[in-house]
C-alpha cells in the first residue's frame, strides 16, 4: 500500500517517480529535470497541446499524447525520448520553419528566440519540406509594437495571455490549416483595436520575433515570459 495517501507512482524514462495526481506529464517532467520540448506551453496560461512537440509515448496507448494536456495516472509508464518521438520532433520543427518566412539572420529576436533554440536542440541542419513562402503582412499600425505574421508559429500564447491574464481578448485566431492567422479584434489593424490595452504581455509571451517593440533593433530584444506566471501567482496572494 502506498504510504503517501495523496501521491501516485509513475515511471518516466525508466525512472520511478512519486507525484501528486492532477498534474500533467509535462509538469511532472519539469519538476524532475526531464527535458521535454515545447513551444505553445507557457506557465501561467492554459495548455492546449497545439505545437505537438511535447508528444510522449504511454505504454498501452497506441497514439502519442501531448505531455502538456495529459494528466498523470497511477502506474503510468511514459517515454519521452524514443527514436519515434525524436523523429516527430524533428518533423514538427522543420514544418515550423517551412510554413512561414523565418530568416534568423535579420530577425529582431536572433539569439533570443525559442524557435531558433528549438532548431539547435533538434539538430536542424536542413529542411526536407518545400517552404510555403506565404505573403504575410507586417502590422505596424500599433504605436509601440509590431506584429509580423511571417514569424508567427501559431502557438497562440499571445491569444491566451491576452484573454486569461490581461482579460482584454484583443488577439484571436481566424481561418484553418496553413491559412490560419492571429487577428486583432475582428481582423482589423492592431493600432485600431478597441480592446488592446497596450500592456505588452503578448510581446513577452511570444516565443519568436513575431511581436516586438518598435523602439528596439536586433540585439536589444528583452523578453521575460516567466513574468506571466509571476503575475498569475501574485494575483492569488491574499494581502
Amino acid at each position, binding site marked *: 500500500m502506498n504510504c503517501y495517501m495523496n501521491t501516485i507512482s509513475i515511471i518516466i524514462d525508466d525512472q520511478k517517480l512519486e507525484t501528486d495526481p492532477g498534474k500533467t506529464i509535462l509538469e511532472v517532467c519539469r519538476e524532475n529535470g526531464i527535458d521535454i520540448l515545447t513551444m505553445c506551453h507557457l506557465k501561467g496560461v492554459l495548455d492546449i497541446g497545439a505545437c505537438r512537440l511535447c508528444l510522449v509515448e504511454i505504454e498501452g496507448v497506441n497514439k502519442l499524447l501531448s505531455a502538456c494536456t495529459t494528466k498523470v495516472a497511477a502506474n503510468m509508464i511514459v517515454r519521452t525520448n524514443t527514436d519515434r518521438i525524436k523523429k516527430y520532433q524533428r518533423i514538427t520543427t522543420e514544418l515550423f520553419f517551412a510554413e512561414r518566412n523565418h530568416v534568423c*539572420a*535579420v530577425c*529582431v529576436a536572433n539569439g533570443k528566440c525559442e524557435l531558433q533554440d528549438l532548431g539547435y536542440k533538434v539538430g536542424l541542419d536542413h529542411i526536407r519540406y518545400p517552404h510555403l513562402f506565404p505573403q504575410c*503582412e*507586417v502590422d*505596424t*499600425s500599433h504605436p509601440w509594437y*509590431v506584429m509580423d505574421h511571417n514569424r508567427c508559429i501559431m502557438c497562440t500564447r499571445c491569444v491566451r495571455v491576452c484573454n486569461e491574464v490581461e482579460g482584454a481578448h484583443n488577439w484571436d485566431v481566424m481561418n484553418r490549416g496553413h491559412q490560419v492567422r492571429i487577428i486583432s479584434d475582428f481582423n482589423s489593424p492592431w*493600432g485600431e483595436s478597441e480592446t488592446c490595452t497596450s500592456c505588452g504581455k503578448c510581446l513577452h509571451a511570444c516565443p519568436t520575433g513575431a511581436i516586438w517593440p*518598435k*523602439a*528596439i*533593433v*536586433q*540585439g*536589444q530584444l528583452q523578453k521575460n515570459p516567466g513574468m506571466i506566471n509571476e503575475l498569475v501567482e501574485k494575483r492569488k496572494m491574499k494581502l
Partner: protein
Amino acid sequence: MDKRRIFISPVTRIEGHANITIEMDDNGNVSDALFHVNEFRGFEKFCEGRMYTEMPTITPRICGICPTSHTLASVKACEMIQGIQPTYTANLLRRLMHIGQNLSSHALSFFHLSSPDFLLGYDSDPAKRNILGIAEKYPDIALRGIRLRKFGQELSERITGKKIHIMGIVPGGMAYPLTEDNRKALLAWIPEAIETVQAGMSIIKKFHEENAEMVASFATSPTLYLGTVGPDGEHELYDGKLRFMDTDGTILQDQLLPRQYLEFIAERSVNWSYLKYPYYKPFGFDKGFYRVGPLARLNVASRMRTALAQREFEQFKQMNNGKPVHGAFYFHYTRLIEALSDVEDAERILNDPQVTSTHIQHHGRWNYEEGIGSSEAPRGTLFHHYKTDETGKLKMVNLLIATGQNNPSMNRSVLEVAKQYVKGDDIKEGMLNRVESTIRCYDPCLSCSTHAIGQMPMVIEVKDKKGVLLKRLERN
C-alpha cells in the same frame, strides 16, 4: 564583317560574380568590351513592407565585406526619420568600427587579391597567382596581410561581439559600449598595423617604379569624382558632406548634404548587366561618368586628417601637380594611404577619454516619412534612401551602392585595357589577366560576398559571330 567574342567568365579574385565580353574584329583588334554583373539581389523590393528600424539589421546582409558601411548609411537614414543624432561616444565607436571594416576590406583587396599580380607577376602561373602563392614565396607579407585584416575585424568584434555582420549600431547610437580591457587590447595592435600598411606601401611604390610606363598608361580615362569630405575639405569616411570634382580638379559641388543626392545623381539601366549606370545629372549620361572609392576620395580631398597619411597624400597630389590622378592603377596606392589614415585615426579614437563612456544611445521614434543616409564604404560613397508610411512601414527603398557608381568607368576601363593588351589570334592567359585586373583595381563588391580562392574556375571562349567556338582557354 565577322566578329569574334571573348568571354571571361567568371572574373576572378573579386568579390562577386561577373563576366567580361571582348568583341574583336577580323583583324584581331578589340572593337568593344562589356562588363556584365550577372547577379540579382532584389533587396530594394523585398524590404518594402518591413519596419524602417529593421533596415540596419537587414541591409548589412547585402555584403560580407562592407556590412558596417551599410549599417551606418541605414542608421543615418533611420535617424533622419526619427529626427535624432547619436551621442558623442556612439560616434567614436561607429567611426572605430567603420575604420575596422575599411582596413579589413583594403587589406583583403591589396594583400589577398591584388598583391599576387605585383609580387608574382601578371604572367606568372595562374595556379599560384593568389594569396597561397604569396604565402609560399613571401610568407611574411602574407601573414602581415592576414593579420591586418584580423585587426580590422577585431575592431568590430571587441565592441559588438561579432566580426562581420555586426550588431549594435542602432538608431541614436550604439547598443554596446567599449570596455577598458578591449580598448587596451585594440591599442596594442597599432604599431604592427602601421608597419604592415607601410610594407604594402613599399610594394606598390616599387611596382610603380619598375612599371612606370604601364602604371602611367593603365586605364587612364579621365572621369568626374565624388567623395565625402569634412567641413574643411578633409578626407572623411564616416560623416561629412559630398564633393563633386571635374576631370581637371575644379570643384563642381561642395558641402552637399547626402539628402540632396537625387539632385545630382541619376541612374540608367543597360541591357547587358543587372548593375545600373549612375551619372552626374547636370552633365548628362554621356559626359557624367564619375568615380567613387579611395582614388576618388583622395582626389576630392584637400587634406588627410592624420600626420603619416598626410605625408603620403602630399606625394600623391604631386603626381599630377595637384590635379586629379585618373589612372585606375592608383586605386591600389590610394587604398593604402587610406589604410594608413585608418590606423592613425583608430589610435586617436582609442586614446579619447570618452571612448569607453556608457552614454551611447539617444532614443527616438518615428517622426518623418523620409530618411536618407550615406557613408563612405571601402569602395565609395553609399546611399540609403527610405520612405515610410505614418506607422514606420517602408514604402520605398533606394540603395545606391558604391560599385554601381563605378560601373560606367569600370566598363570604360575594361575596353581601354583590352584594346591595349588583347591583340591577334593567339590570346594568352596573361593578356586576359590584365583585363581582369582592371576590374580588381576598383575592388568591386558585386554580390558583396567572398568566395574561396583557388576554387573558382575560369573559362575563356573565343567564338565567332554565330557562336561557333574558335578557341577555349581553361583556368582552374
